[in-house]
C-alpha cells in the first residue's frame, strides 16, 4: 500500500512504530498531488513549503516523545474558505484572488496544536454556493471515480482530494449539504457536526445560522478523530457551545505534547485499535438501536438504483440487530423553499463585506470608479460570480421593504416546523437513515444553467441544516460504477451515536 492511501489511524500507527516518517508520508501525498491534480483540480493552492516544515517538526516531536495524538504528522487538505495564516484564501471567488489570510481559523489553530501537516487549500463553489464545484472561479473539480462527472459541492475539492488519495483527510464546510453531498458523490466519509459544535471563527461566512465545519475522511473512525480535535467552545464564535468532545489531555497541553494515552475518551487511538483488534465482535452489535426511515426521503425524484443500495444497507443494519421503524417528516417538501429564502437572506448580508474597500479585488485601484458608490457597484458586479450575484439579489429582494413577513418570517416559522418534525421522530428512534442525495454524481454541465434543478441535488441534506442536527454520509456501495452515500442523522449533540453506528456498519461491511 502506498503511504498516501493510508487512513489516519494507519498513518498514526505507522508513524508511532517508526515504519515511516511524517516527511515521507507528506512527500508521498505531495507527489500524488503533482501527479494527479492536473486532471482532478482538487487543489487551489499546494502549501508544499509549509507542509514540509510541519512534517519535519512533527518528526522531531515524535522522536522526543512517544506520546502522540492521532493526528500528529498526518497530512490534511483544507477547504479554501477556511483561513490559514499567511496562505492565500480565495473561497473559490475572483474577488479574493489576492487575499492572504491574516490569521488562523480556530479549527486550524487546533489542528496546528495537534501538529498536523497542511498540504493545501481545496477547490469549492464560490463562497460555498453550489452543489457541483462548477461555480468555482478557478475551474471545476472532477470526480475521481469518473472525470466526466461532478464531485458534488460545495466541498468538492476536499471530497475529491480524499477520494483520490491526494491527502489523508480534509476539512470542509456544510451549509446545506456541502460536506455530505460531495462525500457521497466521491465515495468518502463526511461529517456535518451539530450546529455550534465546531467554531466557525476564520471560516468565510456564507449563511451564518447554518454554516458548520466538519471532516472528510476515508473512514468513520478517522472522521471522529478529526471531530475530537476541532470541536469545542470558542470565544470568537458566540454560537459555539461548551460541549467539548476533546479529550481532556488535548486541552491546554504544551504544543505537540498531546497525550492520547491517558484519556479514556471513546475515540482515542488506543481504544480504536483495541476495538478493531477485538475479534470477538458480538453477532448483533446494533441490538437495542432504533433506526427511523423517513418516508419522504424515498419519494419522487430518487434514483431507483440509489434507493436499492440504501434499502440493502438498511437490511444489513437490521441483520446487525437494529430495529427498523418507518417515520414521517411531513414538512420535508417545504424545506427546500424555506432554505432558499433564509440562505439568500443571510448571504445578501454576509456578502456586503466585499465592497472593494477593505480587502479583495477592487475597481478603486485602477482609477475607473468616480465615487464611493461606483467602487461598490463595479467591484461587486465585476468580481462576484453568477450564483453569488443571484443569491445576493434574491436575498435583497425577499428582505426588501414590504416582503419581510411574506418571505423571511414565514420561512423562519416553517424552519421551526421542519425542526419539530425531527424532534418528534427522535422521540421514537435513535437515528435516522436515508440517502445522502437523490442521485449519484451527475454529469458536468448537466444542471449548471438551471438553478432550481441544481438546488434539488441537496433535497435530503438541507433539512438537517435547517434543524441544526449532526449527520454523517458514508459510502454504501456503487450504482452504475458511482458511489452511493448513506446518510445517518442524529439528535442534537449526539454525534457519538451516529459515529458508533457508522463504525459498526463500516466494520461489518468490509
Amino acid at each position: 500500500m502506498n503511504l498516501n492511501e493510508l487512513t489516519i489511524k494507519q498513518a498514526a500507527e505507522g508513524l508511532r512504530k517508526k515504519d515511516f516518517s511524517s516527511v515521507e508520508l507528506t512527500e508521498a501525498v505531495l507527489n500524488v498531488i503533482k501527479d494527479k491534480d492536473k486532471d482532478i483540480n482538487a487543489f487551489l493552492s499546494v502549501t508544499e513549503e509549509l507542509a514540509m516544515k510541519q512534517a519535519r517538526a512533527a518528526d522531531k516531536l515524535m522522536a522526543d516523545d512517544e506520546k502522540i495524538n492521532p493526528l500528529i504528522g498526518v497530512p490534511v487538505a483544507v477547504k479554501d474558505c477556511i483561513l490559514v495564516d499567511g496562505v492565500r484564501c480565495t473561497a473559490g471567488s475572483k474577488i479574493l484572488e489576492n487575499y492572504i489570510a491574516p490569521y488562523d481559523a480556530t479549527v486550524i489553530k487546533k489542528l496546528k496544536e495537534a501538529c498536523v501537516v497542511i498540504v493545501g487549500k481545496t477547490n469549492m463553489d464560490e463562497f460555498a454556493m453550489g452543489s457541483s464545484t462548477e461555480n468555482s472561479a478557478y475551474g471545476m473539480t472532477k470526480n475521481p471515480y469518473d472525470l466526466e462527472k461532478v464531485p458534488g459541492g460545495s466541498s468538492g475539492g476536499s471530497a475529491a482530494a480524499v477520494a483520490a488519495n491526494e491527502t489523508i483527510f480534509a476539512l470542509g464546510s456544510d451549509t446545506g449539504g456541502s460536506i455530505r453531498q460531495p462525500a457521497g458523490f466521491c465515495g468518502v466519509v463526511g461529517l456535518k457536526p451539530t450546529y455550534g459544535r465546531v467554531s466557525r471563527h476564520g471560516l468565510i461566512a456564507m449563511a451564518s445560522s447554518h454554516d458548520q465545519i466538519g471532516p472528510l475522511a476515508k473512514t468513520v473512525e478517522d472522521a471522529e478523530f478529526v471531530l475530537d480535535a476541532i470541536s469545542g467552545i470558542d470565544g470568537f464564535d458566540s454560537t459555539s457551545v461548551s460541549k467539548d468532545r476533546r479529550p481532556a489531555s488535548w486541552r491546554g497541553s504544551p504544543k505537540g505534547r498531546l497525550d492520547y494515552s491517558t484519556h479514556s475518551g471513546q475515540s482515542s487511538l488506543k481504544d480504536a485499535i483495541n476495538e478493531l483488534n477485538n475479534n470477538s465482535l458480538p453477532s448483533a452489535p446494533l441490538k437495542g438501536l432504533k433506526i427511523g426511515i423517513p418516508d419522504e426521503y424515498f419519494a419522487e425524484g430518487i434514483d431507483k438504483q440509489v434507493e436499492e443500495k440504501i434499502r440493502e444497507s438498511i437490511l444489513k443494519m437490521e441483520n446487525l440487530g437494529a430495529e427498523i421503524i418507518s417515520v414521517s417528516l411531513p414538512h420535508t417538501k417545504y424545506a427546500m423553499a424555506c432554505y432558499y429564502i433564509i440562505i439568500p437572506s443571510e448571504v445578501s448580508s454576509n456578502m456586503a463585506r466585499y465592497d472593494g474597500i477593505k480587502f479583495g479585488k477592487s475597481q478603486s485601484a485602477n482609477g475607473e470608479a468616480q465615487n464611493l458608490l461606483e467602487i461598490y457597484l463595479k467591484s461587486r458586479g465585476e468580481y462576484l460570480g453568477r450564483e453569488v450575484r443571484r443569491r445576493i439579489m434574491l436575498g435583497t429582494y425577499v428582505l426588501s421593504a414590504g416582503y419581510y413577513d411574506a418571505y423571511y418570517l414565514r420561512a423562519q416559522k416553517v424552519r421551526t416546523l421542519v425542526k419539530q418534525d425531527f424532534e418528534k421522530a427522535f422521540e421514537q428512534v435513535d437515528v435516522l437513515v436515508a440517502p445522502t442525495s437523490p442521485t449519484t454524481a451527475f454529469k458536468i454541465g448537466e444542471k449548471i444553467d438551471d438553478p432550481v434543478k441544481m438546488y434539488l441535488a441537496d433535497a435530503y441534506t438541507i433539512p438537517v441544516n435547517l434543524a441544526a442536527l449532526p449527520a454523517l454520509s458514508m459510502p454504501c456501495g456503487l450504482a452504475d460504477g458511482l458511489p452511493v452515500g448513506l446518510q445517518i442523522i442524529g439528535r442534537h449533540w449526539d454525534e457519538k451515536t451516529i459515529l458508533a453506528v457508522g463504525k459498526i456498519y463500516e466494520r461489518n461491511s468490509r
Partner: protein
Amino acid sequence: MDIDHIAKLARIGLKEEELKKLEGELSAILDFIEKLKEVDIENVKPMTGGTDLANIMREDEVIPRDDKQRQRILANAPKRKDDYIEVKAVFE
C-alpha cells in the same frame, strides 16, 4: 419585481442584458418558493438561529495583536496610505 431597484439595493452593477437574465432566473426561483404559502404557520414561533442560545456575552476588551498581523491586514486593502485604508470621499 423592479430588478434595477434590487440591484441598486444590493450594490451590484450589472449590464442590462445580465439583469434581464437574472430577472428570469429569480422569478423561476420565486415561483418555486411560492410553495411555502401552503404551510399553516398559525401559532408557530420563528427560529432565529441555529441554536437555542440567547444573549451570549463577553468582555469588551482589546486583544493585543502583533504588528506583523496588522500589516498583513492592511496589505489586503486595495488602496492604502501609510497605516490607513484609502477611500473615496463620502461627502463631496
